[in-house]
């Protein structure tokens, strides 16, 4: 049988190509899977802790991982997602910058076959992410609200310092708090302002509020960084002893401040639990599991002077 030179070349290319693909596939199977950890900001120690715990768990499970800092910027987050998808990452553990603005990134990744597991913050689209592991912020702030009412004895003037307005946690915390406090007409909110979860901004916001309302009795802050900023402003104005400050997160300096009697209470979140659950879910996904809960709430615990000894920064005492 005589085969023309063109057919010989074509056959050679096909066999060579199949062999090359086979080698490549073998190589891909041998390589550890890669997990991208995309975090809203590394400018806040709480998120650094979250990212590091996710990275540690991914490594423990045998995966390569890399942390991407979105710097609270949705455009930067989109770049990270594009890079992660193009670079062949197999899963994304995700802490979104914006509940609405981040939806498109999640959808793009999932459409490209990359599962996304949200940590701590949610996106406003049911079923977009593979699963969302979230602090039960609302319930945590119901507990803080109740303690707030008890300690202020149902009356007084107070200030609320909100986190980022585009983040669901900001509103879940605020609504949980108000679901209790608004029942008491003797408690009057004289100012409500955002400080973007940032300590320095909270200090500035508190300083300016104190100019107009020097007679406040309490401050509720949407996170601990802002609680520390507000407390600093109160110290500077000589009012720290009479104004009760409440935070949310369970950050190291606030746990210490509760012990020292400077801050009244916080809601302890468990970032390590969330990070480890997200990494474990990614591991299960790689092994074929597909039926993940859409939302997995993680309980928040009220930390105050009489139980602070049970807690350390970002969780329980070992």
């Amino acid at each position, binding site marked *: 049988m005589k085969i023309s030179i063109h057919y010989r070349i074509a056959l050679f290319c096909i066999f060579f190509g199949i062999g090359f693909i086979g080698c490549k596939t073998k190589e891909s199977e041998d390589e550890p899977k890669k997990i991208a950890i995309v975090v809203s900001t590394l400018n806040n120690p709480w998120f650094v802790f979250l990212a590091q715990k996710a990275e540690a768990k991914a490594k423990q499970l045998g995966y390569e991982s890399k942390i991407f800092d979105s710097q609270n910027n949705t455009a930067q987050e989109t770049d990270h997602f594009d890079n992660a998808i193009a670079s062949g990452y197999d899963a994304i553990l995700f802490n979104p910058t914006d509940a609405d603005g981040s939806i498109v990134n999640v959808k793009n990744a999932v459409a490209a076959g990359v599962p996304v597991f949200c940590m701590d913050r*949610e996106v*406003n689209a*049911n079923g977009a992410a593979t699963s969302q*592991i*979230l602090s*039960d912020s*609302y*319930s945590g702030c*119901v*507990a803080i*609200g*109740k303690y707030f*009412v*008890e300690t202020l004895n149902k009356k007084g003037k107070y200030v609320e310092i909100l986190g980022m307005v585009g983040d*669901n946690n900001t*509103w*879940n915390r605020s*609504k*949980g708090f108000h*679901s*209790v406090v608004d029942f008491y007409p003797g408690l009057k909110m004289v100012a409500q302002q955002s400080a973007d979860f940032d300590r320095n901004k909270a200090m500035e916001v508190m300083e300016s509020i104190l100019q107009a309302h020097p007679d406040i009795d309490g401050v509720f802050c949407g996170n601990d960084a802002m609680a520390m900023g507000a407390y600093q402003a109160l110290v500077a104005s000589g009012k720290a002893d009479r104004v009760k400050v409440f935070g949310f997160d369970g950050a190291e300096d606030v746990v210490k401040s509760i012990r020292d009697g400077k801050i009244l209470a916080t809601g302890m979140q*468990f970032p390590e*639990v969330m990070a480890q*659950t997200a990494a474990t879910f990614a591991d299960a996904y790689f092994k074929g599991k597909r039926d993940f*809960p*859409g*939302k*997995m*709430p*993680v*309980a*928040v*615990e009220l930390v105050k002077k009489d*139980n602070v000894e*049970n807690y350390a920064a970002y969780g*329980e005492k070992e």
Partner: protein
Amino acid sequence: MPKPIRYLLYVAVIALLAYNSVYFKKLDEVKAGTGAFDAAGYAKDFWAKKLMPGLPKAVELGALTAQLKTEKDKAFEQHSHALGIGNIGYFLVKGKGTVTDVSENEVSVALSVGGEGAGNVRIATEYIFGNAVRDASGAIDINAFTNSMDFNNVSAEINKLIRKKVIPPFKSNVQKGDRVAFHGAIELNRGHLQLNSIEIIPVSLQIEKP
């Protein structure tokens, strides 16, 4: 068919198709959402169809505290419900006891079922907040809700029902020394169990005058 009638029919069909293809709605109606979740209605339904019929399954509080002291993990596994991960568990409980104190925010009760000294508990009459009642029954799934605020609003509405239906007749009549029977929900922390300050969010209360 004459041409004018045929054209008229064509125009009529095109007009009908065009009319049914395009809808106009007010932007604020769209933003508000046409199918807004009725948390109050859901809570009433839950109260009548799931919570009340499920009360006979409530665990005896005296027996529960005794079990928690000896086999905590088993007690949580058998009797508590929780929606996600963490130390917090909710229990649907029942019990009887004698009122030892009536204060502005709560009624203190010495439990009688479970033996003498079965423990003292507090029935909340002021701070009816949180998810204890919603979650203790284990009958509601968070993933059945499109967003977490709807889910949280169910709790708020259940608590409103308690404030309206359960608390007023009890608070206006209860006195120190009364015998009371209760059904309710409690929240316990598995990691840091505090059995000496159990607070009951009541769903059913009866007073037996001595």
